C-alpha cells in the first residue's frame, strides 16, 4: 500500500519541474511583448543604418531607451524559458541540465550587455 496520493507523486515531475508557473510566465510575457515589439521594431529599425551621432541621440532620449531596455529584458527572458522548453523536449539527463544552464547564462549575459550599453548611452 502506497501512502502518497497520486497528486503528491505527480507534483514537480513535469519536464520543467514547475510547469504551470513556467506557462504563466510565457503567457504574461507574450502579452507584454505583443504591445512592446511593434514599437521596438519601429525604433530600432529606424535607428539601424544611422550615423553614430544619430544612434546615440536616439537612445539618449528616455522613451526609446526605456522601451528598448524593457523589450530586451522581457524578450530575452521569454526566449530563456522558451528555449528551456525546447531543450526539455529533445535532451535528457545531464545534457539537459547543462544546456539549460548555458541558455540561462547566455540570456543574462545578453541582457546585462544590452542594459550596460543603453545605460552608457543614456546617462
Amino acid at each position: 500500500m502506497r501512502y502518497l496520493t497520486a497528486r503528491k507523486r505527480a507534483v514537480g515531475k513535469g519536464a520543467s519541474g514547475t510547469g504551470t508557473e513556467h506557462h504563466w510566465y510565457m503567457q504574461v510575457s507574450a502579452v507584454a511583448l505583443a504591445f512592446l515589439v511593434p514599437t521596438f521594431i519601429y525604433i530600432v529599425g529606424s535607428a539601424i543604418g544611422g550615423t553614430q551621432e544619430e544612434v546615440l541621440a536616439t537612445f539618449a532620449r528616455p522613451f526609446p531607451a526605456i522601451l528598448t531596455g524593457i523589450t530586451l529584458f522581457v524578450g530575452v527572458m521569454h526566449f530563456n524559458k522558451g528555449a528551456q522548453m525546447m531543450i526539455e523536449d529533445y535532451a535528457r539527463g545531464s545534457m539537459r541540465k547543462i544546456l539549460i544552464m548555458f541558455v540561462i547564462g547566455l540570456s543574462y549575459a545578453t541582457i546585462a550587455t544590452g542594459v550596460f550599453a543603453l545605460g552608457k548611452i543614456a546617462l
Partner: protein
Amino acid sequence: MADVNRGNRPLSPHLSIYRPQMTSMSSILTRITGNALIISVMLIVWWLLAAATSPAYFDLANGVLTSWFGDIVLVLSTLGIWYHFLAGLRHLYFDAGHGLDIETAEKLGWGMMIGSVVLTVITVIVV
C-alpha cells in the same frame, strides 16, 4: 489508484512518420523562429554596445549590419519576429480554449504565414 506506465515514456512524438501538415509545420516554425531570434537580439545588442564604446567599433558593427549580409539577416529577423508574434497571438487564443478545431487551426496557420510576409513587407517599406 492508477499506477499506469511509470516506465520510460517517449520524449516527443515521432514526427518523422507524419505527412507534413499545416498544424505541425506552423507549430515547429514557431519554435524555430523564436529560438533563432536570439541571434538577431545579440546582433542588435552588439551594435548598441559598439555605439556606446567608440567610433571605430561602431563602424565595424554598423558595417556588418548594413552590408548585404546584414540586410538579409535583418529582413529574415523581421519575418521571424512577425511570424512568432502572430503565432504567439494564436497560442494565447488556443490557451483561452478557442480555435482548436482542425479547420480553424489550419486557417489561422495560413493567416500567420501570409500575415508575417505582409507585415515584413510593410516594415521594410516603413522602416
